[in-house]
């Protein structure tokens, strides 16, 4: 189980790639999928490396990313 999960809202993504460059762990990459506007959307290429740090969400200009982090065992954050 990775520490973090990035959910991509496919229709909001414009494929600018800023999140790919910003991710400190090389989690994200372009998928082979295109959305209805014709943009090649981002996906988690290496989900196992995700820490849920949310840097990708911060730099995403289209608010296309939702980030989840694993709750620490024995309590909530």
């Amino acid at each position: 189980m990775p520490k973090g999960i990035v959910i991509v809202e496919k229709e909001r993504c414009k494929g600018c790639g800023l999140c790919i460059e910003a991710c400190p762990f090389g989690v994200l990459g372009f998928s082979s999928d295109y959305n209805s506007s014709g943009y090649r959307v981002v996906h988690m290429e290496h989900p196992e490396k995700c820490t849920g740090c949310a840097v990708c969400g911060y730099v995403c200009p289209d608010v296309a990313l939702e980030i989840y982090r694993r709750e620490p065992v024995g309590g909530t954050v």
Partner: protein
Amino acid sequence: MPVETAVPAGYIRVFGKPKALSDVKYTYCPGCHHGIVTRLVAEAIDELGILERTVGIAPVGCAVFLDRFMNCDFVQAAHGRACAVATGIKRARPELVVFTYQGDGDLAAIGTAETIHAANRGENITVIFVNNGIYGMTGGEMAPTTLPGQRTTTTPWGRDPRLHGYPLKISEMLAQLDGPTYITRQAVFDYPHIVRARQAILKAFRNQLEGKGFSLVEILSTCPTNWRMSPQEAGRWVAEHVTKHYPLGDLKDVR
């Protein structure tokens, strides 16, 4: 938000679309920093819990659809007049939180007078000034903020200061006045700068809630489309060149 991958149990949401943003997709170009700035404004509204008493002034230009992207009340202003419109609203109903969101063509060219005088009166409003050194929506023409030598559609051989003057430093000008409370210049080309810009925007809204007066956050932004750059190149251009002409940091902060 439609979720494509189910989130397994045991995970908590740490980042996502703020409540002050609607489900309407941005009309900004891919990689444009406007989208980040718009989100930061929405985050500040969420964090302060002021959505139900906030009125935004939508500009003319790339953020002309701002009222669709956000969930608060909005007034659409004529090009450059946002600070005058905001003055009218705030004076009529001081209990509202009023902000303008303007580009550099809007705020630093046609709206210079409205901006300077609202600042000089110390109007208790928040101004978000997105400076990308160009007229984005009309086709990439020279703005007063365009850098010397920068090519635009109206300076095809680069801006020549002998013909077109020099980049207008609005924030430095405003910081000389007695009226404003908080004038700062930020950028959003990487994560640390976004965090700082977020704090600045939050402060600019908090100042208004505390009745402190005029706050303006200038944000150096990109226009990958009209700069003819990739979003990544555009961000680096801001970091390496634009910040040399427009240094980052607080220019005035009356506590």
